[in-house]
């Protein structure tokens, strides 16, 4: 089969197209993360900004260098590496050493993204894989959670709210309002539900995200953690599960990420991610399971696509008649 290329391809229909490109989508996502970024600087200090800038720079540079060495089409101007960089930094605490973030960025871009063919071909979310990379190799580097500058005490080491909740410790020093605005220990970008939702509202307005997947993911996690709680059936703390930890960040910015997820199966995968996340929170060793939940769902997308068949117009009828 001979396919047109170049100028000839330029002539094919349709002759009009939507006013939206990969670059615009990625820029929208970056814009949507700005409120949470500003919030993190306010809560955790300039270190948060330094980590984000290091991650973004490393991501973009690794992509650029890799594509130059391999003589591939340059895609650094599509802003996707910027998104990966910000998300990666959002998923580590403010005490993380810069070298760790940079190493994770290189891993995310080179191994997770470019090894598999670059943008769109990665099997899982590169930023979350970067986090998992650190969690496996240097767990200590990203476990130094501190209270924020505005929690009434000087910034000191602390467990996350979910950690305290899981171990049965008292976490009453963190009010639900603090959890909502982000004044709690946690990863850079995950603490402020309010600011993340502002960004998400923008993405919804720009129709960049699949809200059904976001809703299904949050609902599954909350339902599971409510029903099977540490304190007995139907006694889970819904608000704490919702507001502390990375649920909102994961649901709004990573569950909706495009990594190999077809729309038909997005909701199913969101439910699977929710089940795994809740499972880890309830019965796993770690207090938090958002990143593994979403990564597992990413990996299962191929399987789910095989199980959930698309409805193709007229094909079922054809088979019946034959």
């Amino acid at each position, binding site marked *: 089969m001979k396919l047109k290329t170049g100028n000839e*391809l*330029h002539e094919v*229909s349709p002759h009009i197209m939507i006013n939206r*490109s990969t670059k615009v989508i990625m820029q929208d996502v970056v814009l949507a993360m700005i409120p949470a970024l500003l919030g993190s600087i306010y809560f955790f200090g300039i270190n948060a900004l330094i980590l984000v800038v290091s991650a973004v720079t490393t991501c973009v540079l690794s992509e650029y260098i890799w594509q130059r060495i391999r003589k591939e089409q340059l895609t650094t101007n599509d802003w996707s590496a910027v998104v990966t960089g910000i998300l990666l930094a959002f998923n580590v605490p403010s005490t993380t050493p810069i070298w760790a973030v940079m190493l994770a960025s290189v891993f995310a871009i080179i191994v997770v993204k470019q090894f598999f063919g670059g943008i769109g071909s990665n099997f899982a979310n590169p930023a979350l894989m970067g986090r998992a990379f650190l969690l496996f190799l240097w767990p200590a580097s990203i476990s130094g959670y501190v209270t924020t500058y505005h929690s009434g005490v000087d910034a000191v080491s602390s467990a996350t709210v979910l950690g305290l909740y899981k171990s049965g410790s008292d976490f009453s020093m963190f009010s639900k309002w603090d959890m909502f605005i982000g004044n709690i220990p946690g990863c850079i970008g995950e603490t402020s539900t309010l600011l993340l939702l502002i960004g998400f509202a923008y993405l919804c307005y720009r129709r960049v995200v699949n809200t059904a997947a976001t809703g299904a993911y949050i609902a599954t996690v909350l339902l599971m953690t409510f029903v099977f709680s540490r304190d007995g059936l139907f006694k889970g703390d819904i608000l704490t599960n919702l507001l502390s930890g990375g649920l909102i960040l994961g649901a709004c910015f990573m569950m909706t990420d*495009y*990594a190999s997820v077809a729309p038909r199966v*997005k909701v199913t995968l969101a439910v699977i991610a929710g089940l795994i996340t809740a499972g880890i929170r309830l019965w796993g060793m770690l207090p938090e399971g958002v990143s593994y939940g979403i990564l597992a769902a990413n990996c299962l997308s191929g399987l789910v696509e095989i199980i959930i068949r698309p409805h193709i117009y007229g094909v079922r009828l054809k088979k019946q008649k034959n």
Partner: protein
Amino acid sequence: MKHYFHGGIHPADGTDKQLSNQKPIRIYAPKTVEISMKQSPGSICEAAVKVGDKVSKGDLIGRPVEFGGANIHASISGTIIDIRTDSDFSGRKSEIIVIQSDDANADETNSISDYEESLVDLSGYTKEEIIIKMNEGGIIGLGGAGFPTHIKYETKERIKYILINAAECEPYLTCDHMLIMEHGYAVINGVLLLVKASDADKAIICFEDNKQDAAKHLESIVSDKELPIEIKILPTRYPQGGERQLVEAVLRMEVPAGKLPASIGVIINNVGTAKAVADTVIGSIPLITRVVTVTGEVKEPCNYMVPIGTRFCELIELSGGYTIKDQRVIEGGPMTGICLQIGGTYDTLSGSVTKATSGLVVLKDVPKDETPCIRCGECERVCPAGLAPFKIDFAAIEDDISLCNKLYATECISCGCCSYVCPAKRELAYRITEAKTEIYRLGA
């Protein structure tokens, strides 16, 4: 109850059609026409006349040599001054007959017949007679695909519904809309003939809700008359006018893959085709004129009633020429039409109106660069056939035809929705259509 088909898009904001749906249809009589012996894809005819012959308007000048072809008639009276051979982009050759009009016939009067302004008595026409006249009159689908109408009606299946497609879902085009506004009675008479030709229970005329005035106009003609005609208004959405999508939206049925709509008792015709049937059967005028929308970046967008064979350059000239320099001229609608010209001036624009030419749309030519697929899944969400266009695209690029087949590339209706929404600007529709053609070619 809203009527929907699966997938689909809103490719324009609604102002596109307003360019040309406010003004009456202009009648234009060119001095020369160039009638192609290929009136639609895959329907080649051979010339039945030779250079120097005198022909009168309505004389047979071309006979089909292929299954999908239909008779072609002289659209003006005059002399055949040239017959030249033309080859299309795929290298297939066909003839073009050039007729120059005689001044003697130029001032002929256009008297308006009864069927143009009232509902006429059709009891004198039999089913067979109507189908024979459709065949003789060279009637093909005027919606764009150009399938001969009589073949649709020669089916052995029991037909329950005739769907009259007045959706005109392509952006910019207004030829069907204006045709209904000005030739409502002829359309209804034609629809009644189609019902008769098929022994159908009733005809359903399907509009999109951006053409309320046209729907009301037909409603006023058929109301209180106990005709087997229903008028249905559907929410505006492209590609509503696709045969299979129309069946899904209106009747909530699906046409089995690889079968014609007749297999479930439905025939779909364009509203322009219905009018042409009335012209041929009642008015004894074969299909020699049609309404063409000339719109977009031209000085005066308008709809024209022109003879088949009117040269495109004349139509652009009539509309005042291009208003921009880097233009792209499209025959048909912007979603599925064919690109005729990029840049240049209109006097170098070749080609002429065929029975399937619904419009000439002049748009600004926008450079587009294909970037890698980001798997956002938009193409799959909007695909009316339920396909995963990005997967077929990958397979087509790898030249893996059997994988394309497994992914049901054959069910693609080439509507272009996937390419339209793709943020990576990939030419999905083009490559899937090529894969579909290749599958059929290898299977044949």
